[in-house]
Every structure is written in C-alpha cells, then in structure tokens.
C-alpha cells in the first residue's frame, strides 16, 4: 500500500511570520559563541529562530523578551545562559537578512506538498 508523507511537516503546519532562506556558504567561517548559543534555541523556536508552530519566533524578539518570558522551560534557560550569551544570541539573529511576511499563508504553501512512499 502507498502512504502519503508530508515533505516538511504538514501535520504541524502553521504559518510563520518570518522568512529567511539560509545561503549555503562556499567555505566555513568559524562560528562564535553567539551562533552556537543561538543554535540551542532552535529546537523549540525553529531553525534561525523562525517558529513553524504557535510557539514564538525569537528572530523578531529581543533580550528583554528572553528575561520576560514566564514559560517554566524558559525560566530554566535563564540559569543556563549568561547575559553575554543572551545578548549574543539576539545580536546574531538580528544580523540575519530575514523578511517579515505579510501574506503568511501564501509563503508557506510548501507545507501542502506530499510524497508517495511504500508503506513499511
């Protein structure tokens, strides 16, 4: 039997407010602590801080939002990351050339694409 598998994650689809297409570089430039600290946020807030769910996109936030956030898991992160790291995270995210999307649903049509696979 054939099954349809979402190419991205259709069942979790939610329109993001931001758009950023990473450029694949020609060579490696060493990541500083800012990039590596930011990467620890992406599991919950999406790659490059752009959320694909109803959780917040931190790319559009600031240091004060980090400290204001009352979510218990975020409270824990306050102990885990130094002020310097938190400032670095937002400096890095704000340095990315991202766009704010007005017509959110149009941009994220890709979520409706499916692939056909054999059921295992």
């Amino acid at each position: 039997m054939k099954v349809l598998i979402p190419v991205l994650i259709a069942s979790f689809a939610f329109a993001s407010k931001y758009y950023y297409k990473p450029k694949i570089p020609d060579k490696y430039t060493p990541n500083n602590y800012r990039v590596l600290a930011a990467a620890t946020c992406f599991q919950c807030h999406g790659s490059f801080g752009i959320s694909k769910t109803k959780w917040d996109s931190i790319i559009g936030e600031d240091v004060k939002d980090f400290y204001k956030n009352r979510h218990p898991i975020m409270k824990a992160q306050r102990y885990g990351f130094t002020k310097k790291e938190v400032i670095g995270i937002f400096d890095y995210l704000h340095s990315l050339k991202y766009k704010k999307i007005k017509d959110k649903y149009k941009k994220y049509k890709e979520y409706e694409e499916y692939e056909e696979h054999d059921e295992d």
Partner: protein
Amino acid sequence: MKRRDFLKITAITTAGSMIPISLKAAQKAHIVIIGGGFSGATCAKYLKLWGGRSIDVTIIEKNPLYTSPILSNLVLNNIKNINSLKFSYTGLINYGIKILNTTAINFDTDKRVIYTENGKKIRYDKLVLAPGIDFKFPNKYDINKIPHAWIAGKQTLILKKQIDSLRDGDTFIMSIPKKPYRCPPGPYERACVVADYLRKKRVKVNVVVMDENQDIIVEKKAFGSKFKEYGIDYRPSCKIINVDDNKMEVTYSQFGYMESIKGNVINIIPNQKAAKPIFLAGVNDGDFAPVDTKSYESLIKKDIYIIGDSHKSSQPKAGHIGNGEGKICADAILRNLNGYPVFDNPKTNSACYSPVSDNEATWLTAIYRYDPTTKDMKIIKGYPKSGMPSKKNFVDMFYWAGNLFSDTFS
C-alpha cells in the same frame, strides 16, 4: 595553510592504504554520517549550513523514512497517526546532503572505509556515528509477539494492536529498563498513557509495571501521583530473567526472590546498548561509546565522532539534546578541518514533554555546560527541572515537537 596540510595528509594516508579515490574527492573533505535520526540528521544539516560547498556530506541510513519515537506513545491512544511521525529526507537533500539508503555493515577505520549492505565501499575523512540504540534481550523470544516499541514504526503498531485487543480482566505487563536507556521519562509516560486509554475505554485491565530501577527515576512526583490515580501496580527493582512468548509469561527477580507472571499483552523494554555500528567500528567501552563532549570525537579512535543515544556521557539519551549534540559536533568537525581550535565552552539543553493521558502532559528540562576536567557535560543547577501534569503542557508539547522536527528534518 593548515587546511592544505590536512588535505595532503588525507591524500597520503588514503593513497598509502590503496583506496582508489578520484582527484575530485580529494579536494573536499568527505564526512559520512551513519544514521539519519535526531542527532545524525541535525549534524548533516548544520554541517552544510555552516560548511557549505567546502565539504561533502553523506548520510547512510537503512530506512527510507524516519519514524520519530518522540510522540509515538500517542499512537497507542489514537491521538497520533504513525504516518504523521514519519519524515522523508527530501529536506536534507535540498541542502546538498547525499542520502544512501542502505545499512552500514562494517568499518575499516585504519583505511577509513565503510562497507555497506548493497556492496559499496565508502571512503571518509570524518566519520560520525549516530545509529541510536540496540537491546540486551534477557533471552531469545519473538519481538512480533512481545514488542518493545522503543524504536518507533512497525513495533509501535504491533503494540497498539495488542493493546486494542485487551478485554475486561486481562493483564498488561510493561517492563522498564535499567538506566541508562533511551528517554528516561518515556516508559513511565507509556504506562500512564496506556492506563488512561484503557480506563476511558472502560476496559478493566490490570496494568503491571516492572521497573529494574529501585524507584521512578525521573519526575517521581508527577508519575507517582498518576500511577496512584490509575491504580497501576508498580513494582520496583524487578530484573527480567526470562521471557516466554509461548506461555506469555515473564520470569523476574525482585529483592532476591524469583517469580513469574502471565500477561495477555507483554511490553518488555529491554536494557539497552549502543547500536551495532559502534561495536563494528571498535569505539565502545562497555555498552556505549566514550567521547569528549567538546567535539563528540571518540576517546578511542581519531576522526570518529559519536552523537545521540549511542555515545556515553552524563547527558540523557534523548532526541532534543541529540539534535544539540549534532550541532556542536558539526561545528567541531568544521573547525578541525579548517585548522581552528574547537570551541571550548559548548552548552546543550534538554527538553521532554511526557503525555500522561489523552489531554495532559508534564515537562522536564536541563541545561549542561562543558567541564574540561572530565571532558563531559555538567548539569547547571538552580531552576525547577520539571512540572506537574497539565492541559497547557499537552498543547505546548505539539508546538515543541513541531519545531524540533522541523529543525532536524527540514
């Protein structure tokens, strides 16, 4: 300059070991990752995002689609369909990552070669092992009759079907492995999800949980109170001695006594070890692979990195942190290839949402920093690490998982 030296060395060692390589291949470092799960897929993605066209990245993965163990307990109570937990590798291919859909069956780490089931020899400069877990079965028995459902997919569906066949007066037996094992709260979560499901279906089943640990090892308050609410028969310090798939009977020892118990559905989650590639590559010390968590490079062999459930460290065996390990490892490999020192203060974090019914969940989090004296990660203390079951957590669980899945596979 340093990068050139590296390439020269690779070329010499490779030529010296008589592996034919094309000139083109010698220009770029080839990083091969075994396993496209939470840790391996993330490592590949970030290698490409950061290293771009300066490297070749290949994933060798035996399954054409990945099935997430995360949220898979929710297949048991009809909240999730298993197909919604499946991910294709199209997202990674779009970054320029090569996916080889085959099993790695052997390694020659001196010659830097991987042998695959489809008869190929693959040369690498850096090898990342991310193959997940394997089981230490107490004896031989048919896992189609007594599933573990701890690697998601077919096994999840077998257990689901069996649970749906339970009738009034039946017994459901589950075992919890000795730590360390994949996803510390996972088995307690499963016991709660199944007990709640049966109760809501109004099927009176005796739920027996046999834990090889001396007590509930995480979120004791939350799981303990749910076990009480559901009337789960929780038995600590139970070591599984024998599993009989014919008589549907489990023999175990508890406090020095041997006993047997029969069940209509038996879900043994056996004790765990790293998956086979770790042993084939000779990078294990006991059941798992020791690494320096600054880079995840093996403490036994150079240029081999181990991430995710199969490495040995103080971090939990979990998908969220496995994703984080993949990123640290990717950066360390790129620094090494380009002659920069490895970043010496990495941090990782872990988050787990555990459903305990069809509408409530708990959460668990921890943050780790690198400790150069032990070459291991050390937990940072001072904050609440877990929360009690709530409906808000249940909703949050899907927002968390959705972003984790997309950061890993798309």
